[in-house]
């Protein structure tokens, strides 16, 4: 794969503005520099994939976006993360509103050990006391949006833990949709699923993209190539290259990106 110099001169590597804009973001875990001068912009109603070898900081970057890193002792962050025009690390940021707006799907499905119904209405109940009618509508919509409604509508009171892993992951997404977020962060959401379930979940992501902005971390490059619009390649805490997915996979500019996507390192 060769890179034509003319191309790389013209190409705007990082768009300057997006629904999420990162400016000189640095993150330290008690001394360990885990994210280094990350700049980037993620587009609205698009799927952005973050790829890179294990330990390069993908999950860390994802957790920066809804401030889940605040739960870890000894984390220090500098720089700006601007979502919808506001720096979410500015003092006085309302974390609850932020996390409602920027939801997260985890690597292993983590439905609460409650009923299917209670899982889906968990978020709405946190943020108010919606009447039962409204809750039930919301629940049906959320479950339908992840194509789970028909499978579970007869056993809403059953434990969520009795579902298959795929159903559980869908339920976790439904649980998120019920709080009406704008941005969905997904950290290797398919890693516990078999290949067919993975394909179905990717289909779902493409569907959800129409309404939501999605950022997905994945180890699976085919997956990044299949579902994402933009891709960021991370290496040792740096966002080495960021651009349109087709370009990253066919004409990477950085030799490290090229080495990674051609499989030179894991």
């Amino acid at each position, binding site marked *: 794969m060769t890179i034509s110099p003319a191309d790389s001169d013209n190409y705007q590597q990082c768009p300057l503005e997006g629904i999420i804009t990162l400016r000189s973001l640095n993150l330290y875990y008690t001394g360990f520099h885990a994210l280094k001068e990350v700049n980037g912009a993620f587009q609205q109603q698009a799927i952005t994939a973050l790829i890179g070898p294990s330990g390069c900081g993908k999950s860390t970057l994802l957790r920066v976006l*809804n401030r*889940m890193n605040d*739960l870890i*002792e000894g984390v220090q962050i500098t720089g700006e993360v601007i979502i919808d025009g506001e720096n979410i690390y500015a003092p006085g940021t309302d*974390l*609850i*509103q*932020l*996390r*409602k707006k920027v*939801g*997260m799907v*985890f690597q*292993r499905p*983590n*439905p*609460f*050990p*409650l009923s299917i119904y209670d899982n889906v209405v*968990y*978020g709405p*109940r*946190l*943020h108010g006391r919606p009447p039962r009618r409204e809750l039930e509508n919301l629940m049906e919509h959320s479950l339908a949006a992840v194509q789970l409604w028909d499978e579970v509508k007869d056993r809403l009171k059953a434990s969520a833990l009795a579902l298959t892993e795929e159903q559980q992951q869908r339920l*976790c997404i439904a*649980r*998120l949709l019920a*709080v009406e977020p704008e941005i969905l962060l997904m950290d290797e959401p398919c890693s516990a699923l078999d290949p067919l379930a993975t394909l179905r979940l990717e289909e779902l992501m493409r569907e959800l993209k129409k309404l939501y902005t999605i950022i997905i971390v994945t180890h699976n490059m085919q997956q990044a190539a299949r579902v994402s619009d933009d891709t960021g390649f991370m290496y040792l805490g740096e966002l080495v290259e960021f651009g349109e997915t087709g370009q990253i996979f066919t004409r990477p500019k950085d030799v490290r990106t090229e080495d990674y996507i051609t499989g030179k390192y894991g």
Partner: protein
Amino acid sequence: MDRGKFVERVLFLLALSSISSLVIITIFIFEEGLPLIFHTGLKDFIFSSHWAPTKGHFGIAAMIISSILVTLGAMVLGVPLGLACAIVLAEFCSERLRGLLKPTLELLAGIPSVVYGFLGVIWLVPLIRNYLGGPGLSLLAAAVILGIMILPTVISISIDALTAVPDVYRDGSIALGATQWQTVHRVVLPAASSGIITAVILGMGRAVGETMAVIMVAGNALKIPTSILDPVRTLTSNIALELGYAAGRHREALFATGIVLFVIIMILNLSATLLARRK
């Protein structure tokens, strides 16, 4: 026979002897106590409150009721306090502080019960007598002392139950915009509920069985209490107080009381084990 095998045999025999002592104690209590239950009839023994062993009346209802009330009182005081302590230690304080506080609380379990009783007599009993009335030696005093004595059991088992709840549940809840308290209340506590119930049941077992501290502060009067300020005599107190001079049927009646206690404790422990296994 090599050395390893020999040590193994010895350990096995030692283990066997501790189990057999349980069996022997069980057989002994039942052998000594059952004849009286057959003699008076189970119904009269348990449901009559007329206890006059020298005159041939063996009804332990008053003591059963007292034991139940003292235990319930201890639970009402000790469980919320213990659970609150466990939640704070497990969920809201730093690793370092927990490492310091948890062993300290477990030290409470190492204080001899006679010391609790002593403190009860010199502090609590006068306090109750002066501010609430009555003789001071009372159901309330016993409940308060027992409530404190069950704290280490309730706290340390509840902490274990809470820390066993996987962090992915907490993360999932926080990521939906829950506060830390909402997370504890709506996800962590329900997930830890069987462990917490186990903690409560084992605490209850401790309260039912405790004797020394109760004798010292409860007043030991032989009647069904009508107020929390009344003195009461529990099942265990009665055995300890009377065994020294009891003979014949009277002695059997005390062993029969032991059977009742034994059955209560067995039921409590069994349900704790079953609950723990359900998880």
